[in-house]
C-alpha cells in the first residue's frame, strides 16, 4: 500500500505539488492525469525518492521514502519519463547491471534478466547498444529494467509516449498482466489509456487533486453522460419532437460529422427509453442510435480548467 499524506513540493516559490493526499492499494492500477505542468512527474519523482518532499510524507508498505529510502526503493520499479538508460551499454549488460544493483547474485542474475527480456520481448536486441535502438525498444528496455525484481509497486511515467499503436497495445497488455497483485501508477496524457487499463484515475491540476474515481465514475460527471447519439439518413428536426421531454436538456449537432446529433440529458438522467420511443413513434430516419457513457476528455477539460481559473 502506498500512503501519501499532505505531500508538498516547492521549487523556490513555485508550488509544484500542493498538499496532496491519497492512498493506493494492491491490485489498483492508478492513472495519473493532468495537463502539462500539473505536477504529475514531480509527484512521481517524490514517490520514487528521487526528489525530497518539501512537506508531508510518502510511505511504501510502511517504509517512509525519506527515512528508509533503501527499503522503500527496493519495493518500487520505476520507469522515468523518456525511459533514460545508458546508451553506450548493450541491452543485456544494462539489464545485468540493474539486476546486480537490485541485489541478485550468480545464477539469479541471468534468470531475472532473461525473465525481463522475455516479458517485454527484447530477445532480438540483447547484444545491441541501447543508443542504436528505436524509440519503442528503448522504452521496452526501460520497462524491463522496472519489472526486473517483480516489484510490488510499479510506477511508470508516460509508458506509451511515442510508441506506435501496436507497441502501445503491447505495453497496455503487459501492464494489465502485471497488475494483479501489484500497485501500478501510470501517468499519461492519453485518456483512452485510462479507460483501457486503469481501475482508478486521479486528475490533478496545479498540484492539487481535482477528481478521483473509477474511469466510469469520472465519465458519469461528463455532460455527455447518458446522452444519446443519433445518426440520421436524412435531415430531420429532432429538437421539435423532444421539446416536451423534461429530461432532455438540448440537442447538439456533432462537429465534423454530417447528420449526427447528440441529445444531451439533464443531470445525467437516463433518457434512452424515452428518446427511443419517440424515435419509433415519429419514424426518425435513424441509421445509428446509442447511449454515451460520457467523455473523459470532457471531464478532464472541465475540472482542470476550473482549477486553473480559480
Amino acid at each position, binding site marked *: 500500500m502506498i500512503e501519501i499524506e499532505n505531500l508538498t513540493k516547492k*521549487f523556490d516559490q513555485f508550488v509544484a505539488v500542493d498538499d496532496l493526499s491519497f492512498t493506493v492499494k494492491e491490485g489498483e492500477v492508478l492513472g495519473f492525469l493532468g495537463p502539462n505542468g500539473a505536477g504529475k512527474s514531480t509527484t512521481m*519523482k517524490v514517490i*520514487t*525518492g*528521487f*526528489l*525530497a518532499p518539501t512537506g508531508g510524507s510518502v510511505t511504501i508498505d510502511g517504509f517512509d521514502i525519506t527515512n528508509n*529510502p*533503501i*527499503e522503500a*526503493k*527496493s519495493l*518500487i520499479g*520505476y520507469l*522515468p*519519463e*523518456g525511459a*533514460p*538508460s*545508458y*546508451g*553506450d*551499454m548493450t541491452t543485456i*549488460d544494462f539489464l545485468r*547491471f*540493474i539486476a*546486480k*544493483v*537490485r*541485489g541478485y547474485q550468480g545464477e539469479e542474475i541471468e534468470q531475472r534478466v532473461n525473465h525481463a527480456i522475455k516479458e517485454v520481448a527484447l530477445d532480438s536486441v540483447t547484444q545491441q*547498444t541501447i543508443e542504436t535502438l528505436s524509440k519503442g525498444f528503448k522504452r521496452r528496455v526501460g520497462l524491463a*529494467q522496472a519489472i526486473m525484481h517483480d516489484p510490488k509497486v510499479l510506477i511508470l511515467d508516460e509508458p506509451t509516449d511515442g510508441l506506435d499503436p501496436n507497441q502501445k497495445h503491447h505495453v497496455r497488455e503487459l501492464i494489465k498482466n502485471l497488475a494483479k497483485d501489484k500497485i501500478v501508477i501510470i501517468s499519461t496524457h492519453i485518456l483512452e489509456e485510462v479507460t483501457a487499463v486503469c481501475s482508478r484515475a486521479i486528475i490533478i491540476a496545479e498540484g492539487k487533486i481535482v477528481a478521483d474515481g473509477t474511469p466510469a465514475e469520472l465519465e458519469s460527471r461528463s455532460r455527455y453522460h447518458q446522452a444519446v447519439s443519433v445518426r440520421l439518413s436524412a435531415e430531420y428536426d429532432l429538437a421539435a419532437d423532444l421539446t416536451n421531454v423534461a429530461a432532455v436538456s438540448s440537442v447538439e449537432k456533432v462537429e465534423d460529422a454530417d447528420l449526427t446529433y447528440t441529445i444531451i440529458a439533464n443531470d445525467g438522467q437516463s433518457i434512452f427509453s424515452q428518446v427511443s420511443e419517440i424515435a419509433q413513434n415519429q419514424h426518425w430516419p435513424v441509421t445509428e442510435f446509442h447511449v454515451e457513457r460520457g467523455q473523459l476528455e470532457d471531464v478532464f477539460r472541465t475540472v482542470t480548467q476550473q482549477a486553473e481559473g480559480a
Partner: protein
Amino acid sequence: MGNLNTIFQRELMSYFATPLAYIFVVIFLITNGIFTFDLGGFFIRGQADLLPFFGFHPWLYLFMVPAIAMTLWADERKTGTIELLLTLPVRLSDVVLGKFLAAWVLTGIALLLTFPIWVTVNYLGDPDNGVILAAYIGSWFMAGGFLAIGSCMSACTKNSVIAFILTVTICFVFVLLGSPILLNAFPAWVPQFLVDAFSAMGFLTHFDSISKGVLDIRDFLFFAVFIAAWLLASAIVIEMKKAN
C-alpha cells in the same frame, strides 16, 4: 559494498566501451614522453631519477584529468539517467564513490603504463626505486585530488564543457597555491601564517616533497582529506541540484 562495486565496474567498463579510455591513455603516454625527454631533458641531466618525469605531472593532469571527470555527473543529468540511478536502492555515497574510483583507477592504469620509463632509468643507472614508487603513489593521489574537484564541478552542471572549464580553473588555482610564483606575489604586509596556510593548500607543495623522496605521511593525508572533502561536496551538490 556490493553496490559500490557494481557501480564502480559499470563506470570503468563504460570508459572502455567508448574510445575515451584509449585516447586518454595514449595521449597521456605521448605527452608524458614529450615532456620528460624533450622539455625535461631526461638524458641531458645525466641523473638516474625520474624528477623530470614527475615534475610535469601537475601540469599534465591539469588538462587531462578534467577531461575524464567532466562527464561523471553532467552526462547523467543530461540524459536523465541520474533519475534512474538514484531511484535504485543504492546509497548516494556508493554512487559518488563508485564513479570517482572508476575514474581514479583509469588514471592509475594510465600511470602504470608509463612503466617503460622506469625500466629505462633502471637500465641506464641505479635509481632509488623506493623514491620512484613513492612518487608514483603521490602522483596518483594528486590525480585523485584533481578528479575529486572534477566530480564536484561535473555535479554542478548539465554541460560537460562548462564542467571541464570550471575544473581546469579551480585545479589551476590549487596547483598555483603552492608555487613560488604565487607565494612571492603576496605583499609583505600579509601575515606569514596566511601565506603558509595558502601554501599548505597547494598541490605542488605536497607533490614536490613526495616526488623528491621526502616521505611524510601528512602529504598523503593532505590528498586523502582533499579528495574526501570534494567528494562530500559533490554529494551535497547532487542532492541540492537534482531537480533542475
